[in-house]
């Protein structure tokens, strides 16, 4: 295993302001340790891709300072580019080249030539499962195949720091899981530092060692997924009433157990339980509802999620923020958001 010294990322007061626009990134600070997988979570237009583009030297910074693998992105760009690999938000391929030609071209530009380039291409094609399609022009690849090739291109020169900008958007669940495993392997076995942006809660939760949540260009929360969720503490209980009359009675009945929360099911009522209050529990709520004669069709308990953290910090849900951001996105070239995977912590109990 290679040493991972100097593989980290340090960002201080990073700002990006586009002409005649608001600050897309507004003074963020972050540190990513060598070999760490850092999940950068936020809705479309939050500033994720702008941050990545600055860190990979594709976009000049307006103010602040950032170092990647020990090199200053503003003044030592060529060194930064040698140390990093990047799969940006939109796959960047030449439709007239085959997968193998792509890999050999990028390898050659990186100074890896001849047999070494061919061997490297073989290894990467196998790793991303494109051996059979290696000699087909990428114009005929599916979206998932293109994204896998894009990742392989980012790995050609064995980078020490890997930037993945929404790498699983458009991938089927199987490809998504395979990519997660590959990212984990890179971090664990090869000591690669991974900076991963995503708008999928599950992705950040499952994959990232630490998560930074960005909204409107500002980091609103940072920590391990467990730490962030611990800030919320108590779970949320959601009740689906049997009728409008029952719905009208529920808020008053539930107020003693916690604070009102945003429900997932339209027409239902949700309450985030008070922390450290023994009376605030699912059992107590079911008893109270039953005693009051309120009829409910379903009761769900949600463990705290990163979306709850986002809600706590911004007053918005990630999904809602994404919709707002789509209207007024300031990042260049934002893609349409795809439906996020279902919340894996939703737990129907009745």
């Amino acid at each position, binding site marked *: 295993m*290679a*040493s*991972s*010294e*100097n*593989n980290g990322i*340090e960002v*201080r*007061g990073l*700002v990006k302001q586009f002409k005649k626009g608001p600050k897309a990134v507004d*003074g963020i600070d972050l540190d990513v340790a*060598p070999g760490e997988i850092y999940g950068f979570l936020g809705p479309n237009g939050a500033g994720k891709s702008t941050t990545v583009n600055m860190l*990979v*030297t*594709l*976009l*000049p910074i307006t*103010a*602040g*300072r950032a*170092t990647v*693998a*020990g*090199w*200053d*992105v*503003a*003044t*030592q*760009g060529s*060194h*930064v*580019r*040698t*140390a*990093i*690999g*990047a799969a*940006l938000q*939109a796959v*960047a*391929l*030449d*439709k*007239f*080249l085959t997968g193998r030609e792509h890999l050999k*071209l*990028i390898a*050659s*530009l*990186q*100074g*890896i030539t001849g047999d070494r380039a061919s061997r490297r291409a073989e290894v990467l094609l196998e790793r991303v499962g494109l051996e059979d399609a290696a000699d087909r*022009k990428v114009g005929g690849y599916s979206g998932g195949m293109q994204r896998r090739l894009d990742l392989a*291109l980012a790995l050609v*020169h*064995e*980078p*020490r720091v890997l930037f993945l900008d929404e790498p699983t958007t458009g991938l089927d669940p199987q490809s998504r899981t395979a990519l997660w495993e590959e990212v984990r392997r890179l971090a664990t076995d090869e*000591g690669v530092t991974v900076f991963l942006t995503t708008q999928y809660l599950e992705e950040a939760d499952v994959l990232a060692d630490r998560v930074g949540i960005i909204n409107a260009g500002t980091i609103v929360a940072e920590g391990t997924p467990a730490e962030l969720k611990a800030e919320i503490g108590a779970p949320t209980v959601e009740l689906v009433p049997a009728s409008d009359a029952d719905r009208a009675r529920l808020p008053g009945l539930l107020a003693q157990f916690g604070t009102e929360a945003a429900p997932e099911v339209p027409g239902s009522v949700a309450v985030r339980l008070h922390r450290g209050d023994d009376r605030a529990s699912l059992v107590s709520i079911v008893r109270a509802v039953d005693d009051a004669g309120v009829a409910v069709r379903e009761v769900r308990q949600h463990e705290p999620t990163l979306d709850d953290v986002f809600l706590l910090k911004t007053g918005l849900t990630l999904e809602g923020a994404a919709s707002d951001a789509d209207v007024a996105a300031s990042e260049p070239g934002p893609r349409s958001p795809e439906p996020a995977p279902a919340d894996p912590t939703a737990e129907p109990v009745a």
Partner: protein
Amino acid sequence: MTTSTTSTAAPPTTGIINPHATGTSLANQVGLLARRSVRSSLSSPAGYMPGIVMPLILLTINSSGLSAATRIPGFPADRYLDFAIVITFMQSALFATSSAGLGLVRDIESGFLDRLALTPMRAGALVVAQISGAIAIALGASLVYISIMFITQVDFHTGPLGVLALLGLSMWTAFSFATIGAWIALRSGESEALQGIFPLLFATLFLSTTNMPRDLIQADWFRAITRVNPVSYMVDAMRSLIITGWDGRVLLEGAGVLLAVSLIGVAGCARSLRRRMAKA
């Protein structure tokens, strides 16, 4: 706002996983990318056929339609084909504008330019490569036209050396137009801008001495335009090699105009490239 508190970044001295990632020489970069440019162009007949076939169609139409022009007193050639064959070289050179420009625009629009920018590639290598690719296609087309000149027994007044000189001028013309195409591509990043410039270039071709010597053009306004139209000087220089012989003044005028257009194109490319690749 947080201000910088980190110390000056020290170059990594250990832990380099990618010892080979040192890049390759500029010449190799240009070679790799030029091969890619040519292969991309050749992979689609729509990318190169118009540049070869269209000039021949235009030549056929003009030669048959304007053959009577040779009867005008003072017309400098016995056959209109000898006079007009230069249209093919000129038009092929004009296609270099789109060949070089569209290749760059495709890389910009697809994001592949960013992919390349993340390698140790020098920014200028891509532009030089795209221009080289466009010139290679123009060279192929010019060789086809020279073959046609031999087949149709065009009376070539400067001999074998003149054929080489014609080829050289033709490539220089393709280069100068390719730089203009690359400039527009880098500046706009949009294929629409290139498509928009093409009719203008064709108008420039027809408002030159392509179809008639300047002295025989009746309309004053047309004659005046041919005088300020740089394409006229390029056409006249190439044509002189075929129908006149070695004419130093005409060749120098053509070379001067080509030099000026090339310098403008290269300067525009360099400026737009700097702005587009505004990275560290």
